[in-house]
């Protein structure tokens, strides 16, 4: 692909990259910076082979830029709290409340219909998904996005955020429980 073609195709990807960066960094200015750097790197590099989609390739570059930004942030003593209060965050949403004292569902997961996958083709569903991701506590959203969108391995995430594997499992579990509940309440229950 010629450089001119790439620059024309990059602009529509910008808003997606920004959304992903915002969810992970929760810092508007920093998110703008990493996306800017990603697009510059994309334009100057020759890495795009056309084998993967443009978005996948850009997400790959963004992944490194976000990890760098988090690393840099953690080195600044003034913002050491960026991941320091993870324990506090884990207390806020206590999903044990979704179970009774015997460990049974309370309430039970609802019926999502025979083919929930059809929702994926609807623009409104993706908007609800965004809303649900934004409603996650900041650190929970960051970890979930690193895992599910950036596709980082769990040991990489633990290393970058200096948390242990057990913390990571709990955070991801809570993210999934919160997203499941949010999608059920805001999409599937509404469309019954």
């Amino acid at each position: 692909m010629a450089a001119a073609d790439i620059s024309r195709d990059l602009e529509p990807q910008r808003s997606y990259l920004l959304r992903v960066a915002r969810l992970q960094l929760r810092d508007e200015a920093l998110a703008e910076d990493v996306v800017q750097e990603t697009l510059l790197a994309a334009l100057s590099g020759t890495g795009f082979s056309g084998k993967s989609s443009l978005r996948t390739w850009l997400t790959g570059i963004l992944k490194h830029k976000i990890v760098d930004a988090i690393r840099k942030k953690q080195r600044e003593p003034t913002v050491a709290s960026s991941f320091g209060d993870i324990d506090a965050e884990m207390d806020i949403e206590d999903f044990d409340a979704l179970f009774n004292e015997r460990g049974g569902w309370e309430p039970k997961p609802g019926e999502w219909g025979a083919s929930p996958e059809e929702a994926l083709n609807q623009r409104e569903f993706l908007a609800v998904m965004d809303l649900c991701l934004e409603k996650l506590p900041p650190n929970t959203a960051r970890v979930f996005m690193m895992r599910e969108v950036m596709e980082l391995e769990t040991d990489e995430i633990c290393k970058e955020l200096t948390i242990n594997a057990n913390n990571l499992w709990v955070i991801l579990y809570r993210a999934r429980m919160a997203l499941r509940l949010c999608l059920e309440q805001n999409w599937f229950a509404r469309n019954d």
Partner: protein
Amino acid sequence: MTETPDPAPAARRPTTLKRALGHIISCKDASRLVSKGEEGPLSPWQRLVLRLHLSVCAACSRFERQMAFLRTAMQRYRQ
């Protein structure tokens, strides 16, 4: 034409033993194992007790399908 009664529901109803085995772990534990299984392989014991639980618990089976859906949805989010 006479319809033969469907014997399936009775045959599928879990036996007492199966139900007991299914409740070695609670739904809360089962939901945690389902999530943990997304990060890497579970131990053979975890896999066994989870399978036994899912075979008798409709709510957790539903939860497992919803987690699979969530994974697909996040893949779509990336595209």
